[in-house]
């Protein structure tokens, strides 16, 4: 994983390639009031360079500036010494493959590439076929591009770019939407092109893929250079201590693996991150446990309720042409919306199904269907890329000794603790809470004692969904939101609930904290991509050895 350390200015600065062909010198670009690039200096050379950053960081703007499609307001861009805006000749040696480009309908691959070749008046009649062969599309050359899969279309576009044998090749998110086979083929292709001595610039938001593809990495944030390095090492300009770019990499990895801190410090830091993660998990786990306790249903769509909160808050905070609603308000509204969703699900789906005496197995399958519907709707609505809230993105960590977090993370920790305490209070001291515990223990007895079981269930669904939504908001604050954030979390939720004891509320919180800590601290030793496996092994172990978990009761099980 990436290692951060403050870098000495000057020589061997990884933001600058030693044999640069593309030079970006103090470039600023703005559109009206919106600054897209801010005093950016870096350079690119032969081989593959990865350009990384979240949406809105300026990657696309930079690429369009490099290829002369837009002017720079300040500074200058040089491609092999020439200004792409003024000297048209350099365009013959450079090609851009934008992310979304419509191909004229009705053309076959060969026709399309020939069309591009003719546009550039290339003399070599064999160039289109050569280009198609290089990208492995010669067999399909006579098929229509609109019958192609996404990956094949990408390769065709790359062929169209290659047909003029460019020295500089700029590709905007070329791996987006490609399936694993296509990804591998494309990665191999780009590496080959880089090995041929071309300057290949590839933008992406998937760190792990670009690390394997690129020799150098340049990271943009808010139009500025945030980090650069020879993969896998990244150097950070002084002033930015930690940052969150890739939601796949929670803040902990970024901030704590400096070689100057002791093992204790690192583990302490990871533990604190684990506590934050655990509290976020606890929000979803509470809901899961409450719903199971009251209705006996294992809700496989719980993750989607978490995602709902995160996405709703993001949407509200970026709403409309202006800056959107402030994050705190968005968060509160998102949680309320989550509660509404829970209400709707209970009234519209689960209550009628209970009335029909639908069996437990069938209900589980219904939640599976619900998960498919919701997660894919989310994917359609917000796309496959992770998204960030507009505010509070770049902060420095604060805290005693090795126990540091950014202020927004401290907020997450504090708010979640408050929510847990409120929930605990509601369960212990209110009528609803007593009623809920009665229904959990013995629904028939509870209803014959006059408890309105159906109302208890409804309140539980509303509360459980609202808590899950708040978990999504917190997760979004801590890292980022994406359509599948809940899917990834679902098994962690199960792990937490089962470890702590299914049906017990304090168990859910305890289990969540333990899972969070264990998962984060394990990254000190093992590959962070596998850290969830640790939690899963705990889950499996608990189910086999002590299925009632830490705080659960034996009789509820099996």
């Amino acid at each position, binding site marked *: 994983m990436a290692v951060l350390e403050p870098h000495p200015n000057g020589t061997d600065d990884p933001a600058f390639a030693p044999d640069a062909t593309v030079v970006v010198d103090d470039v600023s670009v703005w559109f009206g009031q919106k600054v897209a690039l801010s005093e950016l200096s870096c350079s690119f050379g032969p081989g593959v360079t990865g350009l990384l950053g979240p949406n809105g960081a300026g990657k696309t703007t930079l690429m369009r500036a490099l290829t002369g499609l837009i002017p720079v307001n300040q500074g200058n861009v040089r491609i092999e010494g020439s200004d792409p805006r003024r000297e048209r000749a350099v365009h013959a040696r450079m090609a851009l493959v934008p992310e979304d480009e419509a191909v004229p309908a009705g053309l076959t691959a060969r026709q399309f590439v020939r069309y591009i070749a003719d546009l550039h008046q290339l003399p070599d009649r064999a160039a289109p076929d050569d280009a198609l062969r290089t990208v492995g599309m010669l067999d399909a050359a006579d098929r229509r591009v609109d019958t192609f899969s*996404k990956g094949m279309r990408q390769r065709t576009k790359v062929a169209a770019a290659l047909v003029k044998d460019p020295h500089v090749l700029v590709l905007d998110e070329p791996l987006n*939407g490609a399936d*694993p*086979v296509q990804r*591998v083929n494309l990665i191999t292709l780009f590496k080959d092109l880089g090995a041929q001595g071309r300057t290949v610039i590839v933008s992406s938001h998937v760190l*792990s893929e670009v690390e*394997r593809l690129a020799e150098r990495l340049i990271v943009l944030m808010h139009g500025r250079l945030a980090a650069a390095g020879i993969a896998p090492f990244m150097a950070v300009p002084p002033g930015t201590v930690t940052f969150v770019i890739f939601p796949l990499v929670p803040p902990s990895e970024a901030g704590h693996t400096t070689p100057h801190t002791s093992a204790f410090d690192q583990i302490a830091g990871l533990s604190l991150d684990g506590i934050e993660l655990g509290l976020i998990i606890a929000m979803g786990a509470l809901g899961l446990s409450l719903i199971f306790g009251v209705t006996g249903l*294992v809700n496989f769509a719980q993750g989607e309720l978490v995602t709902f909160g995160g996405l709703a808050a993001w949407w509200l905070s970026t709403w409309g042409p202006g800056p959107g609603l402030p994050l705190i308000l968005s968060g509160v509204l998102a949680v309320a919306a989550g509660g509404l969703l829970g209400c709707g699900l209970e009234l519209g789906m689960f209550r009628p*199904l209970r009335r*029909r*005496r*639908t*069996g*437990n*197995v*069938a209900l*589980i*399958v*219904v939640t*599976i*269907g*619900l*998960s*498919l*519907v*919701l997660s*894919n*709707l989310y*994917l*359609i609505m917000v796309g496959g890329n992770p998204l960030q809230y507009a505010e509070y993105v770049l902060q420095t960590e604060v805290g005693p000794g090795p126990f540091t977090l950014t202020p927004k993370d401290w907020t997450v920790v504090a708010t979640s603790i408050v929510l847990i305490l409120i929930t605990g209070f509601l369960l212990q001291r209110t009528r609803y809470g007593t009623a809920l515990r009665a229904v959990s223990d013995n629904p028939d007895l509870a209803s014959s004692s006059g408890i309105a079981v159906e109302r208890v269930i409804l309140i539980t669904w509303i509360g459980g969904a609202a808590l899950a939504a708040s978990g999504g908001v917190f997760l979004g604050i801590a890292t980022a939101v994406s359509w599948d954030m809940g899917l990834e979390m679902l*098994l962690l939720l*199960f*792990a937490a609930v*089962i470890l702590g004891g299914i049906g017990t509320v304090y168990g859910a919180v305890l289990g969540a904290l333990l899972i969070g800590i264990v998962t984060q601290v394990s990254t000190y030793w*093992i*590959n962070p*991509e*596998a850290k*969830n*496996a640790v939690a*899963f*092994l705990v*889950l*499996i172990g608990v*189910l*086999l050895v002590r*299925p009632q978990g830490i705080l659960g009761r034996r009789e509820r*099980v*099996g």
Partner: protein
Amino acid sequence: MSSAFQDAIAAGLGVQAAAFALAAVGLNLQFGYTGLLNFGLVAFLMVGAYGTAITVNEGGPLWLGVLVGIAASVGLGLVFGLPTLRLRADYLAIVTITAGETLRIIINAGGQNSFTQGPFGIQQFANSFFKINPFPTGTYGPGRVSFSESDLWVMTVTWALVALFSLAVYRLVRSPWGRVIKAIREDEDAARSLGKNVFAYKLQSLCLGGVMAGCAGIMLALSQQNVSPTYYLPAFTFFIYTIVILGGPGSVWGPIIGAAAFWFLIQFTAGVLTDAIGSGWIPSSLLSTDEVLTFRYVLVGLGLIALVVWRPQGIAGNREELLIDDR
């Protein structure tokens, strides 16, 4: 419209449908007949595929790879079953889905040079399979319902396996072994009180169904000449569940009908929606052609819910014998 229809027919007959049918035969045995809520089915496809791919990648012949893949499926069945079959249904679901994901994460975490080759997966290991393809080069079939010779080869082998395993299930279900399984599905204690070793039967069902799923994984891997961890996600298992329930859980023809119908409907819907967007019926601001693929899965989810609520016996299932209805 007609092209969407033809594409749909092709999908209902093609490699994907055949392989999913094979996996569904296995899941039907585990879930439809025995009542095991195995949510980790995709892991069986994964180990079957990886067993084959790794063996060939390390230099072994393909037939050995297939044997290794099948053995891996049996092994996984034992690993899944021995510790967990005593748990009740919802716990079994949680454990199996988690175990499958854990295995996938472990495979993915291997580096490029590990024997699983981590996220890169393994490619190009099926050449000896395609060398023995008896069909000469060309496309086979009328109009758009046509397949290349390699696809046709894969389809032939896979559908043959589907037929073979379906026949075996048919035989088993009508035998005394099948009778015990039916009893176990309905009431384990009753079966125990009659001297039946319930645990052993469940384990056999899990392993046998697992082998079928493993074979499905092998065929898919051979046809794509690729295995990679990102393919074997839990959603895959849920599609097979949809197929089993659509076709009719606990029926012999169910998995076949379900798989063909599933792929037909998925492809047809995609075709119709794409045409509708293309001709303007559906504004592309609402749904773009790229999103059509994802929207299919929304429909799968809705379809699954509708099936379970209104017609849990699917197309070919028997309402009286249904497990899924039980409280």
